[in-house]
């Protein structure tokens, strides 16, 4: 029998059993839509998280910190020579060192504000490393950096958006610094006067290099105050993120093993990405259980159908139908159910995904301030991702599952003894 005849006969048979066919197909539709909905939502979630993280990190800036997670802190900080060596590694555009001063308090008149991170940097180099983040709302990096130059992060200057600014350019600010001593209480407070040279723009996007809560003073000034030439971390700019892994390795080679850690944002993002990928696969495989149940439904209904049509099978065999012909006749029906169910399932799956993303978007409203979550952060919305290979894959998968489950009843039909089948009432 020709293929066209098989399918026209099959669809004719299925039309005669409309309710049964639609219920069987419904099983496939549910299975495939569950897979498509979870897969496209998962992919959408991954894309959103990835984009959010890429905003939060400067992909072409590596951070070198002393010590490693496992071997503990490196006893000494980075020396000037070490910083110079790092800046001379191949493919490093520029390296700049940062001295972290920790908690400081700023006073202006009767106003005071605490700064989470006070850092001493070379302003010019720092601006070169972070051209997108070290941007000014007011003032800027002065041409001649004085010892008392101070640059404020946006949130430092506007701790509360509703209140007026803490300071403006050229205002004088007193900075209270904690300096370690060798005698009890091992710390002394000292006041220094600074002049505000610039106020940074709001970074807005969350991330590790969000300078909104930072205040900057010149590196040279800090060195005089603390009487040291060492620094706490080195920011390294590479020409493009692809080079970051190799540059990180070269930097690690400059130091004895386990002495330093190079933070590579790209590999961090890639790891998170691969974790999300696994979650996506996991969700999709759970959804596949629904398709499995649909497959068993097909097997069930086809077995019943074979029993009901035993006599018909006997007749067909008597007039010369081969086993293969009977097998194909029944398989043609499962193929049609599989194809129709999968195609409809793909469409309803994407519909479901959009509906779910609409409902879910309500749960991702920003709630509290954190380095990754500022009130300015827009609510996370997940757009389901439509992918043609996924859709095609789902249709093929659905059809193959139907064929596999239809195979047993179809073989049973094909192997019926013609005389027995003809006698069947």
């Amino acid at each position, binding site marked *: 029998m020709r293929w066209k005849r098989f399918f026209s006969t099959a669809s004719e048979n299925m039309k005669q059993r409309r309710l049964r066919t639609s219920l069987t197909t419904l099983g496939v539709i549910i299975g495939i839509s569950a897979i498509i909905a979870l897969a496209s939502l998962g992919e959408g979630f991954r894309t959103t998280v990835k984009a959010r993280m890429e905003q939060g990190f400067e992909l072409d800036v590596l951070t070198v910190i002393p010590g490693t997670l496992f071997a503990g802190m490196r006893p000494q900080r980075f020396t000037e020579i070490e910083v110079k060596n790092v800046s001379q590694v191949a493919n490093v555009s520029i390296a700049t060192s940062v001295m972290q001063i920790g908690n400081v308090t700023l006073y202006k008149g009767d106003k005071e504000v605490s700064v989470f991170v006070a850092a001493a940097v070379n302003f010019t180099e720092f601006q070169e490393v972070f051209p997108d983040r070290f941007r000014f709302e007011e003032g800027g990096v002065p041409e001649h950096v004085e010892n008392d130059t101070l640059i404020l992060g946006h949130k430092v200057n506007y701790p509360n958006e509703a209140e007026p600014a803490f300071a403006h350019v050229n205002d004088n600010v007193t900075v209270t610094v904690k300096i370690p001593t060798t005698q009890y209480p091992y710390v002394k407070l000292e006041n220094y006067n600074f002049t505000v040279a610039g106020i940074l723009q709001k970074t807005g996007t969350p991330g590790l290099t969000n300078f909104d809560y930072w205040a900057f003073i010149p590196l040279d000034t800090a060195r005089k105050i603390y009487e040291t030439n060492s620094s706490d971390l080195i920011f390294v700019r590479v020409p493009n993120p692809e080079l970051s892994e190799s540059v990180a390795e070269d930097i690690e080679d400059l130091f004895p093993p386990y002495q330093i850690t190079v933070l590579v944002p790209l590999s961090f993002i890639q790891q998170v990405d691969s974790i999300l990928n696994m979650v996506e696969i996991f969700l999709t495989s759970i959804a596949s259980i629904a398709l499995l149940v649909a497959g068993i439904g097909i097997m069930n209904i086809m077995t019943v159908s074979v029993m009901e049509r035993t006599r018909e099978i006997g007749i067909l065999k008597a007039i*010369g139908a*081969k*086993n293969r012909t009977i097998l194909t006749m029944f398989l043609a029906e499962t193929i049609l159910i599989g194809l129709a169910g999968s195609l409809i399932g793909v469409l309803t799956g994407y519909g479901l995904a959009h509906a779910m993303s609409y409902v879910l978007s309500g749960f991702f409203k920003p709630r509290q301030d954190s380095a990754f979550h500022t009130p300015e952060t827009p609510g996370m919305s997940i757009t389901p991702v439509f992918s043609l290979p996924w859709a095609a894959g789902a249709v093929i998968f659905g059809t193959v599952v139907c064929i596999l489950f239809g195979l047993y009843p179809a073989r049973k039909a094909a192997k019926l003894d013609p005389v027995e089948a*003809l006698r069947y009432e």
Partner: protein
Amino acid sequence: MTALLEARGIKKTYRMGRVLVPALRGVTLEVAEGEFVAIFGPSGSGKSSLLHVLGGLDKPDEGEVFMDRISFSTLNANELAEVRLRKIGFVFQFFNLLPRLTALRNVELPLALADVSEKESIEKAKEVLRLVGLEDRMNHRPSELSGGEQQRVAIARALINDPKIVLADEPTGNLDTATGWEIVQLMKRLNEEKRQTFVVVTHDPNIAENADRILNLKDGLIEGVKKGGVRL
């Protein structure tokens, strides 16, 4: 004359639960081309079993069946199906039409199985339906046809592949006498006009009377051969 169909020492035993029922106990017969042979016997004499074995639907426990000198025992299930498709036409007591298909589609079915194109097979089916006198009923489903009409459809289906032999199992058994008579006449006419070979198992003396030869089957054995002879 060489035998078209030949059976030698056919034995067949059925198992009914724990009891073994011997249906055929060594049947030997020959059918020549163009013959109209009746196998006559009461119910339970093994007529249907014999017909199934002759048509390659069932395998005998012992003995061999030859068609065109080829033994069925040398053929596998697929090849036997091919023989049934190309060389044998079956007509059953209960018509055995597919209820969902129209008369035309039922008749056309063997050609569809034989990979003949739809256009060609529909043409041929119409022609055969005309031959059995059903040209104006061909778009009806079996449930819309009378018993006699259904049996005509079944005969048309048996004829469509131009089989060497038509095997009929009680073709009038489910019909009233008058209609049964019409069916017998139809088969007889096809036998005479087209030299179509028929083997009919029946317990209807009417059919038997019309056959060229009558084989009396009793308790699984052929007990006598009579010349038929009532020419219509």
